[in-house]
């Protein structure tokens, strides 16, 4: 991807997070507490995103390759494994604890730098150290 396209893609993605309410940890926590004054609106973020993304992914699937001529990478061959479930449990614990997932954390850097950094520095360390060793080795082989 060209730098300018990547910058533009990140900008639209980030504005989407802000407009939708996903960038506000208070709104996310209100969505994640169904028994304590539930705010269901954020369910519609995923709904709106999938309504647009599903047809575009289906079109790509039918073509069999990307429009720039590149390959569409295959899904990992291993199915549901312990790393996937265990990792998702850890992610759910962290997301439920503060109401911040990776995208909103990075957008938050511009709005609340100090609390965002307190979240992002340990997140970056976890991202680098957390990858399963086997997948790290496999990724090195591919590239």
């Amino acid at each position: 991807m060209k730098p300018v396209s990547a910058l533009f893609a990140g900008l639209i993605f980030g504005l989407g997070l802000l407009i939708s309410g996903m960038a506000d940890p208070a709104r996310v926590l209100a969505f994640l507490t169904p028994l304590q004054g539930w705010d269901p609106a954020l369910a519609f973020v995923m709904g709106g995103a999938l309504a647009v993304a599903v047809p575009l992914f289906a079109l790509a699937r039918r073509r069999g390759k990307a429009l720039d001529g590149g390959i569409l990478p295959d899904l990992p061959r291993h199915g549901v494994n312990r790393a996937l479930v265990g990792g998702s449990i850890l992610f759910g614990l962290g997301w439920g604890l503060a109401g911040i997932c990776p995208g909103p954390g990075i957008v938050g850097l511009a709005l609340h730098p100090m609390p965002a950094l307190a979240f992002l520095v340990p997140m970056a360390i976890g991202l680098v150290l957390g990858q399963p060793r086997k997948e790290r080795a496999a990724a090195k082989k591919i590239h």
Partner: protein
Amino acid sequence: MSIITPAIGPALIGGAMIGLVCGTMWLLHGRVAGIAGIARLALQGPDRVWRLWFLAGLILAGLIARLAWPHELAAGYASLGLVQLIVAGALVGTGTALANGCTSGHGICGLARLSARSLVAVVTFMAVAAITASLVAAVA
């Protein structure tokens, strides 16, 4: 309690923007717009340059909101404690690296690719997050 609230319109519009980026990056370039994956590979490589520019775009969106938006769109940061932020960040980073995806990677790109792995991931992290947030809210 009604499920129809004024916040649904912006949620749908913002969601559609996110879905448009995910769908377009896949269709045009075969790239997965999952933020945890983009952040990890921006740190480790390969192909760091476009990923760093994508992350710069996210921060630019925050700057625009800070300068131009009439009201605060991330007010909830102010009520989070330091330890809470550090522990949450470590869990989110480690968990998404292990599971190879987050809310966008599994929740949007993975589901749109009809990946069974992503469906399991989304159900798991949504359920665990709801239980965790509810317990924290009950204690606080």
